[in-house]
C-alpha cells in the first residue's frame, strides 16, 4: 500500500522542525515529519544547558525550550508528524519505507528532506589502545544518561576532546558532584567555542591540556585509569611523555559525523570533507528531489543557524514541489587555502548565495576570499578565526557568473 506526500522530512529535530514550519508558511501542507524517538525535538531534548536562541529569539534558552518553540508551531499549524517511527530505507526514486509499532508504511514523496543529524565518533573508530572496560562514554551518551535517564555515570572523570559537548559535560558532571580531573585536546587549540572554555572549564577550575591525547585505557571490568601523552606537530604521541590518570570515567568528545546511512541508501554521493551530501545552493543533493539541512549536511555549532539553514531549504523545497524542478547549478565550489570545507558545493552563479565554511587552522587575522575563475570577487577581513566557529559569507549574484569554478579561501 503506497501512500503519497508532497514532502517527507526525515528527522524531527531542529532542522526537520524548522523546515516543516517554514514549508507550511510557504503554503505546503501535504507533508509528513518522521521522527524515530517518542517525542519531537531531536538532540535538543537532552541539551538542557542554555545558550540556544540568542540570535533567533534574543533569549538564552535551553535546548528543550528552543525545540518547544518550533513544536508549538507544528501543533498550531497541525503539521502532520509521526514519532516512534524509523525510516528503514530510502529508494533513489523517493519511496521511503518506515516502521513503527503501528506497522510499516511505504511513502512516495515528491521531495525528501534529510534532517537526520549526526552521530558521535567512537573510541573504537579511533582505535585507542588498551582494554575495553565499562565507564567509557561518548559525551552525548553520558549526557543522555544524566539528563534523560537519571543515571549518574561516574565519579572520577577524564575527558578527551574539547569539543562543545565535552566541555558542556565537564560542567554538567561537576555540578552533579563528579570530579572532572582534566580535559585533553589533541589539537593545539580548543575544538569548541571560546565561551565554553571559559564558562565550563575555567569557571570550575578544570584544566585544559592542549596537544595531548590518550594512548592507553586500563581496567578489566570498569575503567581504572588512562595514560595521557603529549603529541607533536603531526599529532603523534611523543614517547616518554606518558602520564597516568586514575579515573573511573572517560568521556569522549572526539567529533560528530553526519548520519547519512539513508542518503547513501538512496544512491546519493557525499562530500568526503563534510561527510554530508554534496548540495547546490538550493540544498538539493545530486539526486533530484532530495534535499538536506542541518547537522546531516555539515556539523553546526549553533542551532540558530541550523534553523535558518532548514528554513532556506524549505523555500527551495516549496519551489521544487510547485514547479517540479529547480534550475541547474553547474558551477563547482571548492575549498581553497585555509578552508576545510564549504557548503554549498555547487552554485548557479545567477543568484545571491551564502557560503558556510570552516577554517582548517587558527588564524589571528586573515582575509576570507571568494574567487571565480581565479579572480577574487569578494574579500572580507576577519580576526580570531578558529575551526570551532563556522563562518559565513554572502555573495550577491552580481559578483558571480554562471561559469567558472568558485574557490573560497582564507589567506
Amino acid at each position, binding site marked *: 500500500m503506497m501512500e503519497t506526500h508532497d514532502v517527507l522530512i526525515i528527522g524531527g529535530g531542529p532542522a526537520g522542525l524548522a523546515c516543516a514550519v517554514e514549508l507550511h508558511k510557504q503554503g505546503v501542507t501535504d507533508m509528513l515529519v518522521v521522527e*524515530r524517538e517518542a517525542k519531537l525535538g531531536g538532540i535538543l531534548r537532552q541539551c538542557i544547558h542554555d545558550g540556544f536562541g540568542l540570535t533567533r529569539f534574543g533569549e538564552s534558552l535551553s535546548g528543550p525550550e528552543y525545540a518547544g518553540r518550533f513544536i508549538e508551531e507544528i501543533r498550531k499549524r497541525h503539521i502532520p508528524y509521526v514519532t*516512534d517511527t*524509523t525510516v*528503514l530505507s530510502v529508494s533513489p526514486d523517493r519511496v521511503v*519505507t518506515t*516502521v*513503527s*509499532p*503501528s*506497522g*510499516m508504511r*511505504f511513502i512516495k514523496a515528491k521531495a525528501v528532506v534529510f534532517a537526520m543529524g549526526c*552521530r*558521535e565518533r*567512537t*573510541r*573504537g*573508530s*579511533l*582505535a585507542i*589502545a*588498551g*582494554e*575495553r*572496560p*565499562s*565507564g567509557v562514554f*561518548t559525551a*552525548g*551518551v553520558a549526557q*543522555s*544518561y*544524566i539528563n*534523560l*535517564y*537519571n*543515571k*549518574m*555515570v*561516574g*565519579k572520577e572523570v577524564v575527558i578527551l576532546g574539547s569539543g562543545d559537548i565535552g566541555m558542556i559535560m565537564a560542567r554538567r558532571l561537576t555540578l*552533579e558532584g563528579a570530579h572532572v580531573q582534566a580535559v585533553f585536546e589533541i589539537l593545539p587549540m580548543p575544538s569548541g567555542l571560546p565561551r565554553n572554555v571559559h564558562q565550563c572549564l575555567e569557571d570550575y577550575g578544570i584544566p585544559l591540556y592542549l596537544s595531548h591525547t590518550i*594512548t*592507553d*585505557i*586500563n581496567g*578489566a*571490568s*570498569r575503567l581504572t585509569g588512562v595514560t595521557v601523552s603529549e603529541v607533536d606537530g603531526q599529532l603523534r604521541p611523543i614517547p616518554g611523555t606518558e602520564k597516568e590518570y586514575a579515573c*573511573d570515567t572517560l568521556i569522549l568528545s572526539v567529533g560528530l559525523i553526519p548520519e547519512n*546511512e539513508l542518503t547513501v541508501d538512496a544512491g546519493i554521493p557525499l562530500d568526503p570533507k563534510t561527510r554530508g551530501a554534496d548540495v547546490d545552493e538550493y540544498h538539493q543533493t545530486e539526486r533530484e528531489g532530495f534535499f538536506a539541512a542541518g547537522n546531516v549536511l555539515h556539523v553546526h555549532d549553533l542551532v540558530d543557524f541550523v534553523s535558518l539553514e532548514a528554513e532556506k531549504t524549505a523555500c527551495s523545497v516549496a519551489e521544487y514541489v510547485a514547479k517540479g524542478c529547480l534550475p541547474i547549478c553547474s558551477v563547482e565550489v571548492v575549498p581553497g587555502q585555509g578552508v576545510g570545507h564549504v557548503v554549498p558545493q555547487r552554485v548557479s552563479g545567477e543568484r545571491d548565495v551564502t557560503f558556510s565554511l570552516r577554517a582548517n587552522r587558527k588564524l589571528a587575522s586573515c582575509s576570507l576570499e571568494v574567487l571565480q575563475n581565479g579572480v577574487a570577487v569578494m574579500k572580507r577581513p576577519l580576526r580570531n578565526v578558529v575551526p570551532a566557529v563556522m563562518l559565513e559569507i554572502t555573495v550577491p549574484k552580481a559578483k558571480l557568473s554562471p561559469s567558472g569554478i568558485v574557490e573560497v579561501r582564507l589567506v
Partner: protein
Amino acid sequence: MRQLFDVLVIGGGVVGSAIARELARYELSIGVLEKNLDVCDETSGRNSGVVHGGFAYDTGSWKAKLCLQGNRLMGDLSAELGFDFLRCGKVLVGNTDAEYAQLERTLAQGRANGVQGLEMVDEKRLHELVPAVIGKFAMYSPNSGIVDPFGLTIALAENAAMNGVVYFFDREVEDIRRVDGIYELVTNDETYRCRWVVNAAGLGCGKVSDMLGITGYKVIGSKGDYIILDKRTGPLLPMPAYPVPSNTYMGIHVTNTTDGNVIVGPTAEATGNFAYYGVYQKNIDYLAESGSRLWPHIRKQDYIRTYCGILPKWVDEKGVIQDFKMEIKDDIAPNAVNLVGIESPGLTASVPIARHVIDMMREREPFKPNVAFNPRRKGLVRFSRLSPDEQAELVKENPDYGQIVCRCQNISKAEMLEAIHNPLGVKTMTGVKYRTRGMMGRCQGGYCQMRIAQLLEKELGLADTEVVYSRKGSNLFVGKVREDKA
C-alpha cells in the same frame, strides 16, 4: 550443599557447552560452572569465527581429524541450532616460489587429512574468487567457512539448557577434592558435588588439570589482537584470505564475518597473563600495515573497534605446540575428563570434541539415552533480514518488532526482549549484544545502549548499579542523578 550432579562441566564456552549438550542426549543431571557472567566472554567469543578446512594440522592429529568432522557437520548444525554459518571458502595467498612450494605441501597435507576440494589456483582464478586481494596464486579451500562464534556458543548452551542442563554463572572453580568417590568442586561461591567432572576450562585448563592432580602440563597463552572494519568493506572480501601459513601460526589474515564486517588479525604473542585483553597500539599499526599487503582496503575511517583473544596452547619443554589433549587418567583422577590445549581449531571441532569426550565416558559407564532430547533450537528472528512484506506481517503480530532500538542495524525491541529473557538467565549488556548483534554497528551503542540498559533494568528488575557491561564489576552507573526522596 547442592544435589549431586552426574556431571559438572567446568567452563561454559563453545567446547564446554558442546559437551553439555551432547551429555544432555543421555539421562544425566548435568551442570556447567562458568567463571564469567555469560558463555562467550573468553576465547569462544574472541576469535576469527573461521570454520577451518582441516589442512593446516599434522596428519593423524586430533586437530586434523576433529576439525574435518566439525567442518563437515557445521552446515547441518547451523540449521539445527539457528546460528549463522557460511561455507564461503578460503584462499591462502602467495607470491614467491618458496610460498608456492609451501602451499603445495599444505595441500598435500590437507588431502592426506581427508579434506575435499583443495586446489591450487592461478592469479586469474584467484582474482575471480577475491578480486580485491594482492597475490599471484593461492590454495583454495572451498569447504572452509565462517561462523558467528557468539551465535554458535550461545546456541549450544541454550539448547543444552533447554534440555535440562543447569548453567551456574560467576562460578570459578578454586579447588577440587575427591571424597568417597565423589568430586567436590569448591568455587568462589558454593561447593558443587558430582560423579563426573569435565575440564573444559579453556585458558584455565592448566590450573584445573593441576587441581585434578594431573600435573605437568605447560599451558601458554597466545594473545591475538584484531581490528574490526565497517560493513562497507564487506563486499570487498567474499571469503577469508590468508598469507601462506605454517603449522603453528595462521598469519595476519583478513576474514569476512557472517554479518558483513571484515576482521583484520590476529597478531600472535606469547603471554602468561590470561586476564589482560588490552590491544597494543603497535599491534593496531602492524595489523593495518601487514594486512594491507594482502588486501589493501584497511582504512582508519572504516575502523569499528579492536578486540583481543587468547588461545591456550599446550607446549612441550621445548615450546613446541602440542595436539589437543583429551584424556581420562583413571589412576590419578577417575571419572574426570581432562581437556588441555583446546585452541584453534577448537571452535570448528567443538561438537566432535564433545562427542569424543562422551565416547571416552561411555567406555567407562553406560549412559541411558534421553528420549526427550530435542536437538533443535530456533534462533532469533532477525527483523532486518526479512522482506518488507514479512516485516509488515511480523509487526502486525507483535508491535515490538516495529520499535527499532539499534538503528545502525535495524534491530527491534522484540529481538532485544527475547535476548534479555534468554534461557541461560544472562543479564549483561553484552549478553544482549552477542544475541542480537546490537551495539556492534557504526555508532557502537551510541544510540541504543541507553535503551538496552533501560530494558534490562525494567525487564529483569535490576538496580542502576546492577546493570553491567560484561564482567562482574563492569557497572555502567554509580547511582542515580536524583533520588526519589530529597
